[in-house]
């Protein structure tokens, strides 16, 4: 396995937690990881982006045009970072509607697929906007191309959650089930 993953959204959406969730799971599976996180000023609400390489080189950042996947907690941040994806790359985005129409034909041309889930809405239904990130993790993990088993993700969530493991596990499962439904259709 060799994965280059971009995780993006706005400060305060739990991007660092989401990144650690994948990194920790990959390491548990015996893979090497290299991650770049955003800390500091932009965590106060600005654009936040993480780069995650599983079994890749040791440079922290992913070269634009080579990422396999992107998980975006916000649609505008997904669009802003689209060029980071390679041809036939994949976007998992938290959104009610599709991405801006302007990018549509380029996505077709580059064979980039966009998978959409209204995760914020699901999170509020579960009782807290703060678990949107974990719902998106479950969603991505449900895709057959995304090579990180949900079982291991569940174990990691249990391990790294502080006092809200139960809600987090519910969020992961919700995203996963939603994904299975969407991807099998």
């Amino acid at each position, binding site marked *: 396995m060799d994965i280059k993953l971009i995780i993006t959204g*706005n*400060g*305060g959406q739990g991007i660092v937690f989401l*990144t*650690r969730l994948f*990194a*920790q799971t*990959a*390491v548990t599976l*015996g*893979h*090497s*990881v*290299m*991650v*770049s*996180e*955003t*800390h*500091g*000023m*932009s*965590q*106060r*609400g*600005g*654009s936040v982006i993480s780069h995650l390489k599983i079994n890749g*080189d*040791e*440079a*922290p*950042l*992913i*070269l*634009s*045009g*080579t990422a396999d996947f992107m998980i975006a907690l916000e649609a*505008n941040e997904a*669009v*802003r970072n*689209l*060029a*980071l994806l*390679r*041809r036939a790359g994949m976007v998992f985005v938290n959104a009610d509607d599709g991405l*801006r129409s*302007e*990018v549509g034909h*380029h996505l077709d041309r*580059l064979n980039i697929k966009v998978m959409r889930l209204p995760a*914020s809405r699901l999170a*509020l239904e579960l009782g807290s*906007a703060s678990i949107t990130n974990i719902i998106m993790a479950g969603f991505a993990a449900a895709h057959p191309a995304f090579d990180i088993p949900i079982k291991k993700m569940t174990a990691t969530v249990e391990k790294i959650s502080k006092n809200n493991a139960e809600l987090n596990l519910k969020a992961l499962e919700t995203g996963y089930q939603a994904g299975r439904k969407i991807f099998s259709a």
Partner: protein
Amino acid sequence: MNSQPILGNEAIAIGIIENGCRVVTAYPGTPSSEILAGVMKHKKRLKRDVYTEWSINEKVAFEIALAASWTGLRAVVTMKQVGLNVASDPLFSAAYTGVKGGFVVISADDPGPHSSQTEQDSRLMALVAKIPVFDPSTPAEAREVIKDAFALSERYKIPVILRPTTRLCHAVQSLSIDGAHEPDDGIPSVKFHRDPPRWTATPKFRNLLHVELNKKLKDIADEFSDSPLNYVVNASSNGTMGIIASGVAFQTAQQALQELGARVPILKIGTPFPLPQKLVNSFCAQFETLIVLEEPDVCIEIQIQDRSHVKGRLDGSVPGAGELTPEVIFLVLSKALSEAGYQVNQPPEDPELAALIKGLPLPVKPPRLCPGCSHRSAFFAMKRTFGPNAIYPGDIGCYTLGTNLRAVDTFVDMGASITMANGFFQANRLVKDERPIVATIGDSTFLHSGVAPLINAVHTGARFVLLILDNHTTAMTGFQPTAANDYLADRMEAPRKVSIPDLVRACGVGYVNVADPYDQEDFIRTLKEAQAHAQSPDGGVAVLIAERPCTLYDQSPILEHPVPVVITEECDGCRYCTEAFECPALVLRPDKSRVDIDYSICVDCGQCIDACHKGFIIPKILEISRA
């Protein structure tokens, strides 16, 4: 062995603890802040007796660690690059006097910059101060190199600098942390011994020490030429071009070569100062063209003796400012390789898509103060009191974001709000500008370098209002305690805490008051009182302390007294609240017809009630009673 994902700063901390370091001091600053937290975590894990402290500023931190080294213990001080400016006085002096126990200064640079006022290069500071530098390229390397850093420092009795950059500090790499460390030998039996020609060297001796320092650097440069920290990769490839790279740029260059489909020898420099001249000269002699990749400025490049074949930042082949991202390095190498006749691949990024996205009007969300942040309330009251006509010198911290509210007109460096206010007062007197001057500074920044400026302002008769935004923590960098807190770095109870009001009074300030910015009415009243003092014939500097804990750090006051709010039907989308108050939870509808509250991030502070001058933002209980 069991691997774990470890943050770069934590990897550095592990290296510090594993190598028997006994004293670690720091002042927080992005991207260096997590090092001390890591030290505290791993000293516990390995049960090592290590003294740690968040010092009041970088100069203090430096000197406390230096004293430990002069005793014979291993010591580390950590800071961000601009913090090294604050500690530069002892830095230069310690290069001459030398050290006893291994002494490592960790100064984290911020190419970009991402969270700093400059892109200055600590390696250049080291060059000017004549101190050797280690420049690791990954978290794993950073952890390993600390052993070499201590050893070199002790062998040559010289302070050394370890220089990571943002991308290393905030990288997470899988590392195996158990098993590898050396056994704990316990506290060494050392003590401080007088050594007048060294520890109290007069100018005559300083001259001798300078001669000695130059000799040390020459020997170290030779030693570095044979050091395993400096080595060549892709050596077997033949061609006319070579690359010299250090830090994260070394890793990024390898990644770029892979994508370019070219094999080019890279001389990896792990010790940029003093440059291993012998090694560099023999590497350079093999090629017609050399590219130097380093961040954030030129340190290796300027030390190369024959630069006639060198392309880098000096001749413009590498951009003179900004981060060496994978894309920048790809372009630089692609151009240089093509010119040298190599076949290279096109950039993998789709140019059409990239150009389209660049041109899209995507909303740029600037960083903003958190929902419920007490700074916002203080700024709002300040603007309501003094209006757009006052001069607002600001300072460094979360509250620098007051620029969004036009409540911060200047920021220079830590503590400059007070000196700039002082300077504006004196200059304005000459040019007959009578605008009020209202400076803002946070609690941690005030203690870091605001006290001396305040004394200066009092003593020279300046008149302005100083607002000390006391939110009980160093919020921006991750909630480190200050001297005004009742606990220490490791959460142990502090023997004493400093009272900011008492301290201000002791500086000779004639008007000192404390008010809660959440109580707008009272806060505005005290602000007016402060201004009256600043203007009265026998007045002077007036200090108002805005006291309210950081909402992100301590939600308890709001949880005890939540004030949920609603915006009534009457809201007409005038945007006064979103612009003048700017709580991220106040959201203008896409059709601009009205403002809604994003309850998913609203913290029920109730502070926006005052932010609608038409009274359309009301407490929820009122809405219920209305209905």
